[in-house]
Structures are given as C-alpha cells and as structure tokens.
C-alpha cells in the first residue's frame, strides 16, 4: 500500500511543484505573496478545457492522451501567462505599494478570476473529455495503481521543470533572474533591465502554474475553486523549500505532495490509535486518529512549524 501511496504522491507532487515554482519566483522577484496564483492555475485549466473541447482529439496519442490534449495544454500555459501579464500591467505595475498592499490586492484579483470563470462555466465540477484509463497492468502486482495519464503528468512536469533548470542555469535571462532574486538593487545597477526580467518572471511563473492547473484538472476534476483550494498547499511547499529558491520550491513541492498522499499511513500507526491503552490515567478508548481528511491540515501545520524553526526553508540558509 505504501508503494501505491508513494506513486500517487509522486503524481500529486508534480502538480504542486509546477505551482510552487511560479509562486516562489514571483515571491522573490515581484516581492509579494501572490494569493491569485492558485486561481491562475484555474485559468490555465479552463483555457485548456475550452481548447480541448474545440480541437478534439487530433488523431493519434501519446501516453494515453490524444495530441489535442497537448495542444490544449499549450493553450492553457499561454492563457495563464497572458492573463498574469495583463494583470501585472494593469494592476500591480502602477501601484508603487508595499508587499502587504500587493498581497491584499492579489486576493481581490483571485476573486475576480474565480468569479469570471464561475460565470462562464458554472460552479459545478467538469472533466476533460478524455477516456478514463485502467491502471497499468505491469505495476499491479506491486500494488501500484497508476494510469498512463499519471505517467504523462509526471513526465510532462519533469520536462517542464528540466527546461526551467536549463533556462536558469545556462541562459542569459536565467542568470539575470537569479541575480535579481538575489539582490534587485544590485541587479539594477549592474545594468540588468529589471522591468523586463520581472515580466519574464510573470510569464514563466504563471505559465508553469497554468500547466499545473491543466494537470490538476486531468488528475482530479475542474471546478472554479480548484486553484484556490490548492493555494495553501502550494504556499506550504514554497515555505518548506524556502521562499525565493526555485530548487527549494521543487523539493518542498515534492515533499508536501508525497506527505499529503501518505496521510492514510498515519491513521494506521498503532501508537496514535491506541494511545489510551498505553498511557496511564487516560481512558483506553482515547486515541488520535488522523484520517485522510486531515491531509491538508498536516501540510499547514508543517508550514507553520517550518516558519518558526527555519524561516528560510530547508534549502535556504539557516538564520
């Protein structure tokens, strides 16, 4: 069972990682906690949903997904990036406000995105019109139930994250972004056009979020609240990894995703459920059962604990 949970943890972490990289990039370069990031994911998911409905399957498929789905994925990424850039240009850019004011503004933006999506598509759950697959036969003997779609999510996430790594390490833009995340003032005096780098940060961050949203829709369902519901988990991942560190966000996203899916293991731990029988002066029936419904709560508690003990995250420098 643990293997199966680990596998679904890997799939879920791929989605969290895609969201958390963008959030971390924007946090470090635009310098505020973007509460609209989750709803940017929703924008990407619904853009892909519309595109997929329009272009259809387009013949042959890869990993159980028709080619049209990948076209839709691309559209989702572009749509999320465009929406984010337009928002940045119209709203955040001219504000000249502190990070707190920007944070509160981004909540308003999140509401606007969600409201518009809900007006267009209703509050109900929808699904991508792809065939639901059976778990891969070869892995069933090990108790692992993953579908080809899950594999597609993980592979696509690895490709996207890998190309971001290449971009950050080997291109001019990547070096500028890292410089700016490190010290914006220093970056500016050394002649980096910080405005342009900031714009690219929004494009990359929101684009990755859009792809995360599309995969989330494929993994679960689409609903106007899907992104906002995931937002706190993504924050937990970013904080666990250390704000501003892209590689930390990857690691944090991976850990949060796996921990989230591993929650059923906790309710099986004998010590927790039979605490009363082991401790004196406590009724025998007493025990803490941490069920699957507390999966998110565990992540939030981890987040607060990390903020207290190591505010710079596991990948950041210790205080």
């Amino acid at each position: 069972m643990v293997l199966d949970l680990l596998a679904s943890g890997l799939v879920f972490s791929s989605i969290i990682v895609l969201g958390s990289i963008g959030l971390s990039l924007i946090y470090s370069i635009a310098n505020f906690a973007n509460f609209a990031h989750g709803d940017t994911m929703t924008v990407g998911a619904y853009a892909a949903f519309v595109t997929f409905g329009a272009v259809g399957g387009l013949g042959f498929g890869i990993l159980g997904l028709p080619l049209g789905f990948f076209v839709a994925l691309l559209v989702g990424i572009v749509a999320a990036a465009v929406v984010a850039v337009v928002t940045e240009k119209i709203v955040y850019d001219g504000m000249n406000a502190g990070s707190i004011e920007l944070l509160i503004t981004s909540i308003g933006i999140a509401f606007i995105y969600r409201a518009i999506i809900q007006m267009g598509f209703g509050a109900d759950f929808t699904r991508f019109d792809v065939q639901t697959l059976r778990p891969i036969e070869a892995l069933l003997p090990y108790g692992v139930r993953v579908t080809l779609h899950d594999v597609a999510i993980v592979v696509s996430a690895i490709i996207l994250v890998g190309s971001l790594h290449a971009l950050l390490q080997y291109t001019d833009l990547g070096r500028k972004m890292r410089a700016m995340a490190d010290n914006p003032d220093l970056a500016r005096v050394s002649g980096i056009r910080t405005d342009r780098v900031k714009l690219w940060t929004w494009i990359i961050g929101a684009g990755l979020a859009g792809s995360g949203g599309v995969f989330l829709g494929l993994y679960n369902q689409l609903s106007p609240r899907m992104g906002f519901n995931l937002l706190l988990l993504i924050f937990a991942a970013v904080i666990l990894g250390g704000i501003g560190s892209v590689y930390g966000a990857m690691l944090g996203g991976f850990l949060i995703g796996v921990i989230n899916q591993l929650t059923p293991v906790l309710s099986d731990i004998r010590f927790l459920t039979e605490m009363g029988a082991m401790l004196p002066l406590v009724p025998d029936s007493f025990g803490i059962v941490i069920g699957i419904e507390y999966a998110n709560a565990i992540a939030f508690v981890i987040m607060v604990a990390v903020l207290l003990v190591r505010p710079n995250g596991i990948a950041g420098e210790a205080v």
Partner: protein
Amino acid sequence: MGVLSDPKGYWADLTRAERGVVASVVAFAVLLLAGLLTGALSPTYFLFLVGIAGMYALLSFGLNSQWGFSGLINFSVAAFFGIGAYGTALMSADSSPIAGGYLPIVGLFVALAVAGVLALAIGIPTLRLRADYLAIASLGLAEVVRLVVLNERQLTNGSAGVRGIPQFFEGWPVLATLPQQMPGLVVRPFPGTELVLETPFWGALLNVAVVVAFVGVSYGILRRAHRSPWGRVLRTIRADEDLARALGKNTYAFKMQSFVLGSLIMALAGVFYAHLNLFVSPGDLDPVTTFYVWVAVILGGSGSNRGALFGGVVIVTIREGTRFLSGLSEFVLDLGVVALQFDLSFISSNVAPLRFLLIGVLIVVLMRYRPQGMLPPQRELIWPSVVDDPPSKLESGVRGVKAGESDE
C-alpha cells in the same frame, strides 16, 4: 460641536470624504425608511439586516484592532467567528453532542474563553513571524480549525451542524418571554400599506438590542484602549516595530494582547450570530467570511473604528442586496415610443459569482486608488479636547523656528 446644536458647523468641519459618506448614509437610510413605510421591506427582515450589519461591524472592530492598530495581518477571522458561534451553540443547544442545555449567557463566556485560548494558541507561534508570513500561517491555521470542526463529529456534529440553539435571552426573567407577551400591533403609515408587528418582530428587536449592546461596549472599549498609552504603543509598532523595540517595549507582548483582544471581539460576533441564526454549521467557517471582513476594514479605513462600522454596513448591503438580484428575470424600460427590454436572466443565475466579482473589484480598486479607505483615522486618535481648543499661536511659532526665523 454636536450634530444637533450646530449642523452647519458640523458639516463645514467634515472632510470631503466624510461628507460623501454622510450623504450616502443619509440617502441609504431614507431609502430603507421608504422601503419600510411602503411595505416593500418587511420590518422583521429589516431588523435581521440590522443584526447582520452589527455582526459585521463587530468582526470589523476585531480585525481593526489587529490590522488597523498593530499591523497584524490576521487571515483567521472566520475561525474565531466560527469558534465563538460553535462555543455558545455547543453549550446551549438541544442537539449539542457534548454539553447543551446551559443558559446562553454561560455559552457566551465559554465561547469567549475558548476563543481566547485559541488566540493564544495561534498567536504564540505566528506573531513572531514577518507580516506576510503571518498572513499565510494564520490562513493555514484557520483552515485547520475548519477541518477539525468539520471532521470531529463526536464533538461538533460534523457537517450536519448544530440545531436547536435557544434565543439569547432564554432563561432571563422578563426578556425571555417578552416577544410572546408583546401585543400584536398593526401600523398604517400610509393608507393602503399595513405593517403587522407581532412576536417575530419583537424577537428581532431584542436581537438588535443585543447586537447594539455588543457593538456599543466593544466600540467604547476599543476607543478608550486606543487612545491610551497602550494604544499609542500599538500604533508605534504598526508604524515601525524596531522603533518600538528601541524604546524598550516588548512588542511581542503588545501584539499578543492586541491579537487576543481582537479575537475576542470576533468571537463575540460569532456568539451573536449563533443566537440570531439558531443554527451553525462548518460552512460558517468558510474563509470567504474572512475576506468580507477585510474588505469592510479596508473600505472603512484601516485603524478607524467608525470606518469599520461603515464598512460593515456596506458589506451587508453587498451580501444581502445581491440576493434581490436572483429574483430578476427581465427589465423593461418603457420610453413611450420604444420599449427597451433587457434580459437579466444572466444576472439572476450568476448571483454568487457576481458577488465575488464585486468584492474582488472593490478590493483592487480600493488598494489601487484609495488604500487609506473612505474614512481614514484623523481626529479620532487624539483626545477631543486637544482638537477642540487648539493653541492658537503655537503653529506660527513652530513654523518660524523651523525656518530659522527665531526672535533672537
């Protein structure tokens, strides 16, 4: 300087924003009165709205004492509201799985005690954090509280909620049965309209009395507290925490006190809500309540209690006013020659997202163009006597010295 003794002077003394707010409040009151007198708005529902507005005003006071005065970004308003509501509901309701059957006044104190403990539990780890971390952490912990209320069925009835909550005055000598004993009245303000005032009306009137008392007491306490030396330290912390620390203040302790005080007022709002609605469910802890209250505080003006009051009323207008939209289907504008017909089914079928859109746009527009809110704090932070009798010569003297034109 009273409104009644010298209305002209009072008007002249107001800033432009204050005039706008006063004018719109008066216009809104006239509109409501007209609705009442013509029978378009039932008196009982009107009193319910007043109660809800008072509840939002309390929540805004609570948040204002945290964000407006000490600069704490608390995104767990809904959690404290819900704890207040559940605290009193579980003590007093028939269907309560743990206690139940106690007087609501016992529930009030239990709810406040639980909220105080929760405030300490959330505050101790989070108040040392940077401002934006506090926002994320408090939102996360509020979600943990919501999940616990939703899932611990043996304690809270889970998603079924708690029913059978008594009225607030249950068990009091006279007030408990007052609504039943009051005679039914029929008022005819105009020929043709008829207002029937019966038991529900008197019950609602009692609820309004409760919330007015709560709001009045909280307003008085906050007003006094924020003008005291304690309040000045809080404002210093908001402006510059390092400065407050350099002056020898234990900023963590001050922030904690402010956080607990605000949380208690939020819980008070929850207690009132439980005895108004007579039913609580985990849906009442939805984070969207938190953002409603934030809008109220930002709209009113961070740090301003009368602004918070104003913001609370506006939020209720948005929340309840959009309900009327769901009844619309089409709107015909008859210009005599041509009749314009608007299809409004899009609006009526999209009330919930429209409300979201309105709230979102309100937040963005406010933060972009008027971050200080409609009624930013001005005179209310200073003792009135200081403003009313300004030392007449001081200002020019100070200016002279500043410009280096001293007499010597």
